[in-house]
C-alpha cells in the first residue's frame, strides 16, 4: 500500500509538471484527487490493512494529497502568468498614433505681458490699481501738468466726447486719482495697467487703442536711484539679466527730471521701451501731497511695445485682429 502511494506520487508529479495548459491541469487534478481519482481509489484498499498500519498509511496519504495540491497550485500560477503575458502581447498598440485632440486655449499676449509685469511689481511691493478709460480732461491732462493749450488737448489728437470728457490718452491720470484717494498717506506704490486711446490711424506701428502700464511710488525721500533700481529689475526680469539698458533724459509734463529708457538689441540697436521720471512737484501738489515733504517716481510703458520686442511681432494690428492662428502661438505663455 505504501509502495503504491509512493508510485502514485511520483507519477503524479510528472503529470503535473508536464501539463500544457490550465484545462489539462484541471483534468489532471480531477484524475488524481477527484472523487473517482487515483488517490481515492488507492485509499479504498485501506480496509484491508491492519489497524496498526491504518493510521500510518492515513497520515502518508494526507501528506501526499497536500503535496499534490501544492504542485497543482504552483503549476496553475505558472500557467496563468504565461497566459497573461501572452494576452498582454496581443494588446500592443501603436504609441505613435495621435492622441485625442484635447484643445487648450491661451491668454492674449498683451494680457500675458501685463500679468508678467504685474507679478514683477507685486514682488517689489506694488499694488495693482485701475482707473476709468473714459476720463475727464481734468485728470487726464490738468492734474498731470499739461497746460491748457498743449497739443494733446486738441480735439484733433484725442477722442473727445464732450469738451470736458475724453477717452484717456494715457494711464497717467490714475496717478492723480490714486494720490487723491490716499489723501496724503505714504508709502504709495501702485501700478496700473489699462487701455488708452489716441486719434491715430491704425497701421503697422499705430493703433487708436493700445495698452499701457503706469507705475507710481510716493514717499518721503523717494530718489531717482530707486527709480533706476526698480526699472533695471523690471527690465532684467522681462528681457533677461544680460540686457544692456540706457537711461536718456527726456520730457513729459508730469515728471522732472524725466527720462526715456532704451534696451540694446544686437540687431536693431537701441530700442525705446518706456518713459519715466521723478513726479513733477506740481503733480504732487495738485493731488494733495506737499512736494517739500514728499517725492515720487513714475513710469509708463507700452504693453504692445514690450510684447512686440519680446516676441518679435512686426505689426501692432495683430493684437486686435485676434486671428486665432496668431493667438494660438502664445498658448505656452
Amino acid at each position, binding site marked *: 500500500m505504501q509502495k503504491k502511494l509512493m508510485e502514485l506520487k511520483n507519477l503524479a508529479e510528472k503529470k503535473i509538471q508536464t501539463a500544457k495548459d490550465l484545462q489539462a491541469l484541471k483534468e489532471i487534478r480531477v484524475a488524481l484527487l477527484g472523487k473517482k481519482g487515483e488517490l481515492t481509489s488507492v485509499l479504498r484498499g485501506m480496509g484491508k490493512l491492519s489497524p496498526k498500519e491504518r493510521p500510518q498509511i492515513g497520515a502518508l496519504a494526507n501528506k501526499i494529497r497536500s503535496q499534490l495540491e501544492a504542485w497543482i497550485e504552483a503549476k496553475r500560477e505558472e500557467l496563468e502568468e504565461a497566459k497573461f503575458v501572452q494576452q498582454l502581447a496581443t494588446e500592443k498598440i501603436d504609441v505613435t498614433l495621435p492622441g485625442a485632440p*484635447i484643445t487648450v486655449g491661451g491668454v492674449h499676449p498683451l494680457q500675458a505681458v501685463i500679468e508678467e509685469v504685474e507679478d514683477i511689481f507685486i514682488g517689489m*511691493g506694488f499694488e495693482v490699481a485701475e482707473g476709468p478709460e*473714459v476720463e475727464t480732461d481734468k485728470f487726464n491732462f490738468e492734474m498731470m501738468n499739461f497746460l491748457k493749450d498743449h497739443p494733446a488737448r486738441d480735439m*484733433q489728437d484725442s477722442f473727445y466726447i464732450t469738451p470736458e470728457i475724453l477717452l484717456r490718452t494715457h494711464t497717467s491720470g490714475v496717478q492723480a486719482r490714486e494720490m487723491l484717494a490716499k489723501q496724503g498717506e505714504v508709502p504709495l506704490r501702485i501700478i496700473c495697467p489699462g487701455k488708452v486711446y489716441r486719434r491715430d490711424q491704425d497701421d503697422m506701428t499705430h493703433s487708436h487703442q493700445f495698452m499701457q502700464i503706469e507705475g507710481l511710488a510716493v514717499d518721503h*525721500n523717494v530718489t531717482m536711484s530707486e527709480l533706476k533700481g526698480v526699472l533695471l529689475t523690471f527690465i532684467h526680469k522681462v528681457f533677461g539679466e544680460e540686457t544692456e539698458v540706457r537711461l536718456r533724459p527726456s*520730457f513729459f509734463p508730469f515728471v522732472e527730471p524725466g527720462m526715456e529708457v532704451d534696451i540694446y538689441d544686437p540687431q536693431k540697436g537701441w530700442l525705446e521701451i518706456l518713459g519715466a521720471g521723478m513726479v513733477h512737484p506740481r503733480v504732487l501738489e495738485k493731488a494733495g501731497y506737499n512736494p517739500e515733504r514728499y517725492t515720487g517716481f513714475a513710469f509708463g510703458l507700452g504693453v504692445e511695445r514690450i510684447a512686440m520686442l519680446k516676441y518679435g511681432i512686426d505689426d501692432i494690428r495683430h493684437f486686435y485682429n485676434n486671428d486665432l492662428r496668431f493667438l494660438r502661438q502664445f498658448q505656452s505663455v
Partner: protein
Amino acid sequence: MLVSYEWLSQYVDLTGISPEKIAEEFTRTGIEVEVIYTRDNGVKNVVVGEVLAVEPHPDADRLKVCSVMVKDGELLQIVCGAPNVAEGQQVPVALIGARLPGGIKIKRSKIRKVESQGMICSAKELGLPEKMMMKEDMEGILVLGKDAPVGEDVKEYLGMNDQVIELELTPNRSDCLSMIGVAFEVGAVFDRELNLPDVVEQKAKGKQAPISIRLEAEEDCPFFAGQVIHNIKVGPSPQWLKNRLISAGIRPINNVVDITNYVMIETGQPLHAYDYGHVKNGNIVVRRAKEGEEVVTLDGVTRVCDQETLLITDGENPLGIAGVMGGKSSEVTNYTTSILLESAFFDPVIVRKAVRKLGLRSEASHRFERGVDPERIIPALTRAVQLIQQLAGGTVASDLTVERIGDVEDVVIRLRHERLVRLLGVEIEKEEVLNIFKRLNLPAELDDEHEEYIVQVPTRRQDLTIEVDLIEEIARLYRYDRLPSSLIYGQTTRGKRTKEQEIRRKIRHTLCSLGLNEVVTYSLTTPENNRSMASFHPEAKPIALSMPMSSERSVLRTTLLPQLLETARYNLHHGTQDIAIFEIGSTYITTEKKLTQLPSEHLELGILLTGAYQPEGWNTQAVEGGDFFVLKGILEALFRKLGLRQYEYKAAAPTGFHPGRTAEILVDGKRLALCGQLHPKLAKEYDLNPTVVCQIDLQLLCDSVESELMYQSLPRYPAVTRDLAVIVPQDVISQELEAGIKEAAGELLESVRLFDVFSGKQIGEGKKNLAYSLVYRAKDRTLTDDEVQAVHQRVIRSLEEKVGAKLR
C-alpha cells in the same frame, strides 16, 4: 531740427568732435538724434568745369559737342543734350570713372559717333533734392555761379560734403531750434567755448524813412521791432548761404528772403521782409482779424480769417498773418528795392490757432508756437540788417524801431544742494554742480551759508522755471548713467491684486484650460452693433465721440458680443472654423443724453463658441461648440472653479439670441449672465454656423463667489443608488423636477443626476421621458432597503402629484 555740421562749426569749436560723437552724447544728455546724413548722395569725381565752346553735333540736331576745361589746360570733349548749355558757363562735370546717385558710373562713350569724355550734370543727376532747388535750376544742366573754382570737386562748392544731424526735440527744448541754441548745448555737453557773431545796431544813413508801429492786440504781440532798408538788389544768394539753407532743409529763394531764413535758423527768431513800397506810409498795425476778413498769402491762396487770427496790417490792408505767412501784396520780388524787416514776439497760442485753422505750418510758425526768446528779437533783426547790407547791397533807411509792452527779466532760481542730493540719491560734489552750470552758461553762485546755488536763467532757456528743472539740468549733464541704482527704501509694503483682479485672473486661466482663447477687441464700435445684441443695460444711451475717425469706431460699446461676432467672422474668413474665444473688457454705460459726468464702466466677460469645441480624433468623437449645453458645461466648470454655488437658469429671449435656446442666469434674483444660441438671423449676417454666446456681469460674479471653504468629512457609510425614469409633459423643465425630487427626498438624498432625456411616439405626444440617478446616504448609519424604498416611493408620489409625472 536739421543741424548742418559745417554751419554749427561757425559758432562752437568742433575740433575732435565728429557728428557721430555729437549724436551719441546728445542722445545721452537729453536731445535725441534721429539720423546723421551726408548730402553727397554717393557722388564722386564730379568737378567744376568751364564750357569754352559749344558746337552743333554733326549727326543730331538736339545734341551739342562742348569743349569743357576741367583744370588748367585740360580740355574734355563732352556731348550734351541740354538746351541751356552755353559758352562761358561753369558746370558740374562728371569725369570718366565718376559715380552718380543710384550707382551710375560714367564711362568713356561715343554718342552718335562723337566721343564724349564725361557728362555735364543736371541738379537731378547730382541727386540734389528737387524741393530745395529753384525751378530754373532743375531745367537742363545745373549752371553754377561764376565764383565756382574750375577743377574743384563740385561737392565742395555745392556743400555736398556737409553732414546733417537731425535732432528730435522734445517740446521743452525749443531753445535748440537755432544753431546758436545747439551751439550752447554742444558747449555744455563737450565743455567748449562758443564763438557767436557780433551784432552792431545800424543807424539810418541820411533821411529817415517813415516807419511807425502800433500794437493793438498787446497780449498777442507785446514786442515788435522793424527797420527799413533801401537800395537793395534782389538776386540769388551766394552759394555758401544757399548750401547752409539747403542743409537746414530750406529752399533758397532770393538773397533777402534767404537772409531772413538764415537768421531764423541761426538765432531761432523768425523774421519777415515786406516790400516797403507796399506798406502804406511805413505804418505797421498789429491787430486781430475781423470775422471773415480775407488775406491772400504768399502762396497765392485767399485765406478767410476769424477773430482768433492775428494780422499784420498797414492800417488799411493786411500785410500777412502774424507768425504764419506773409501776404502776397507785400511780397519781396525781383523788382523790390526797399524793404521793411520785421522781428517780433507773437503769442504761441494765437499762432497755433492760426496754424490749425488755416492748415499752414512753417518753420516760422513752428518757432512762434513754442515761444521765441524776447532777448533775441533785436539782435536777430540787427544781424539780418547787417547781412542784407553785405549781400544785397542795401543802405539802412531807418533807425531800429521798437514797440514793446512790458519787460522780460532773467529768472533767478535757488537750488538747494541738499534737495539735489536727496532727489537724485547721489552725493554730488558742489564743485561739479558749479562746473555744470558754467558749461551751461547759466551764471550761478553758491550761497555757502544756506548751501544753495543762486542761478540766473536767461530767457533763451524758458523751460527752466523751478528748482527741479535745474536738478534735471544737473542730472543730465552729470549723466543718468552715473546715477547709482538702489532698492526701494522706506517702509515695506505688500504688493497685491484686489479680490476682483484675482478673480478675473482666475477666470482667464480657467477658460484657457477649458480650451478657450482670450481676445482683446476695440472699445469703439458702431451704433448698429450696440443695438444688435442685448446689453445688460437696456437703458444705456450711446456715448458718441465728437470727432470720430470713422463710422466703424464712433461710439463706445454697451455689450462685448458684437465684437466677438466680428472676431469670429474674421477668423472664419481666414480659414479657422473651430472658434472658442472669450474677452474680459468694459462696457460703457450712461443714461445721460449728453455726458456731464463719467459713464460707469462695467467689466463683463463675453464668450463665443462655434465649430468644433473638441475636434474629432481618429478614435474620439467631436464635441460641437455651437451647442447650448456645451456652453453651459463650460460655465458650470468655471463657476465650480470660482466657488459660485447658488444660481439658477431661466429661459429668456433677449435681442440677438435664439428665442427658444437662451437662458439668463440669476443669482439672488439678479441677472448674472445671458447665455444662449446666437439668433440664426444674426448668425447668417455674420456668416456663422450655429454659434453660442454668453455675457457675464463680472462685478456681480465677483460679489457672488464664496471664498470661504470648509472641509466636509468623507462619508463613512455606504450609499444606495436608485434610478428613476418618469414621463412628464414637454413643458415641465428639468429644474422643476430636480427641485421636486430634492424636496421630497429630504436629507437622505445625497445627489441627483440626469442621465437621459428622450421623447418619441412610444412616450406619447407632448411628453418626454427623463431618467435620473439618485444617490441616498445617511451620515450615521448604513441605510436599509426598507428605508431607501420608503424615501424613493415618497419621491415618486410627489412627482406624480406635483408635475403629473408617470413612472415609466
